[in-house]
């Protein structure tokens, strides 16, 4: 059913640390790999080795430059995938019931056997988290690796979303954001975790940790003149300078 659950006892989701992310795109590759080989239709590429390659991805890493009013500009690498919103607009617009939010853990999923590929859910998502697969003709989105996190055939250490498991920088965290004592909830509380586009009223479960304040220079560095003067230069260097100046 495309009605949203009134509340979910658990809110499984990601916490993404914008301070730590180095923009290596390993999460993008791990996500594409796992979700092409496992649950649902593979994430297709068209013209993969040609002039105009296009593919379906559930996770993409943007890079932004932030210029503060004072201080130096800095770069922020910005991974973006489904935020598993509590008021997910993509779910309620679905005409077939293929799009749904699980009552038990809040994961937003697509039943690919019921999806007619109308694309309205992708229009309803402000974050660009849903992509219609060009080959399969069904809507693809982050499943929070639902086929990993509860998968008892995997070693316990691997029961994490592929993007979290692979992140070499430790910038991605997975857990229950409904439990205030969970590691992810504490991270959000300590670091001031934020919602993306709160004005859209989607109440995302995934949170983003803002970059930590940078060190500020305590004094302006000694001025380096653009045209170094040799006036008053003594000794050997002074003699060379005066000699060369005669020519």
């Amino acid at each position, binding site marked *: *059913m*495309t*009605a949203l659950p009134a509340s979910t006892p658990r809110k499984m989701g990601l916490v993404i640390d*914008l301070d730590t992310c180095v923009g290596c795109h390993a999460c*993008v590759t791990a996500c594409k790999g796992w979700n092409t080989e496992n649950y649902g239709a593979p994430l297709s590429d068209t013209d993969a080795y040609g002039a*105009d*390659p*296009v593919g*379906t991805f559930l996770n*993409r*890493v*943007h*890079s*932004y*430059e*932030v*210029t*503060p*009013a004072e201080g130096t*500009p800095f770069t*922020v690498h*910005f991974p*973006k995938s489904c935020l598993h919103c509590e008021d997910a*607009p993509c779910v*309620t*617009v*679905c*005409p*077939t*019931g293929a799009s749904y939010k699980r009552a038990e853990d809040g994961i937003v999923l697509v039943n690919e056997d*019921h*999806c*007619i*590929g*109308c*694309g*309205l859910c*992708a*229009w*309803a*998502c*402000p*974050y*660009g988290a849903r*992509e*219609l697969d*060009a080959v*399969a*003709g*069904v*809507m693809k989105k982050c499943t929070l690796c639902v086929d990993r996190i509860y998968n008892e055939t995997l070693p316990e250490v691997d029961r994490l979303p592929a993007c979290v498991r692979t992140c070499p920088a430790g910038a991605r965290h997975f857990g229950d954001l409904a439990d205030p004592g969970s590691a992810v909830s504490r991270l959000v509380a300590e670091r001031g975790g*934020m*919602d*993306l*586009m*709160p*004005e*859209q009223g989607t109440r995302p479960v995934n949170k983003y940790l*803002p*970059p930590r304040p940078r060190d500020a220079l305590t004094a302006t560095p000694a001025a380096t003149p653009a045209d170094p003067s040799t006036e008053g230069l003594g000794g050997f260097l002074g003699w060379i300078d005066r000699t060369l100046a005669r020519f």
Partner: protein
Amino acid sequence: MHPAPSIILFTTISGLGLGLLAFLGIGMIEPTGLAAFLWFTLGYGLTLVGLASSAFHLGHPERALRAFTQWRTSWLSREAVLAAVAMLVLAPHAIGLIFFNRPLTGFGIIGGLLALQTVLATSMIYGQLRTVPRWNHWTTPTLFLISAITGGALLSGLPFLSQMLLAWLAVAMVLHWILGDSRFAASGSTLGSATGLGARGAVRQLEPPHTGTNYLLREMAYVVARRHVVPLRLIALLAACVLPSVLLWIAPFSLPAIAAAILLHILGMLTARWLFFAQAEHVVGLYYGVR
């Protein structure tokens, strides 16, 4: 938003068909016999052709019947259900007029109102999207409803009512354009709010996530030809409203004039509907530095 020809055709053609069915149902015109047959065929035909063309943009048209199930939450599902129910409820009225020269007024009125509600449901598919601020406004359902009613009046061959409605349509179009132009800014969504970094300073895209294009950019960041907006708006306004109105004023009871007015109106509406999509900006474009 990508102006898909199938959706432009669907909304325009089915809007006309449902408008005509509403006029036939409510009894604004009451043809009988062969005339009734031709008029109802036109109404049903346009509606069905419109609905069929909407199926062309589906990834899996063979599963389209599933779209009738989620009417409790989804405007798209409501549209499908309402369209089917409207056409079914109008059928006895049509049969009565065609074969027995007698209207079944109850079926007609309820069916006619259902036809208009179908148009409302179509408009709300777009109107309820907060992600497209230009659409997320009362001018969207107003524009769709007035368009359908005007089309219905024109196809019913009611010159004076048509002229009045064409004027209202012009007002609705211009309001949708003018008020729509400031909707994105009013939505409050910026690259700063999209990344959560706005409080730290001015945010600018440094590098996109991939070198090629993707589904999101193709579908939702359509920027081609937006610079021709002013001439296109004028063409739409002239063809859809002004010229048909002038034609009906010059020769209100001449069949060729009415036919020409209808043709111009349809061409104008297709241009306006193209603009409706091509001009609409989705907030996801912010992440890619495009609007």
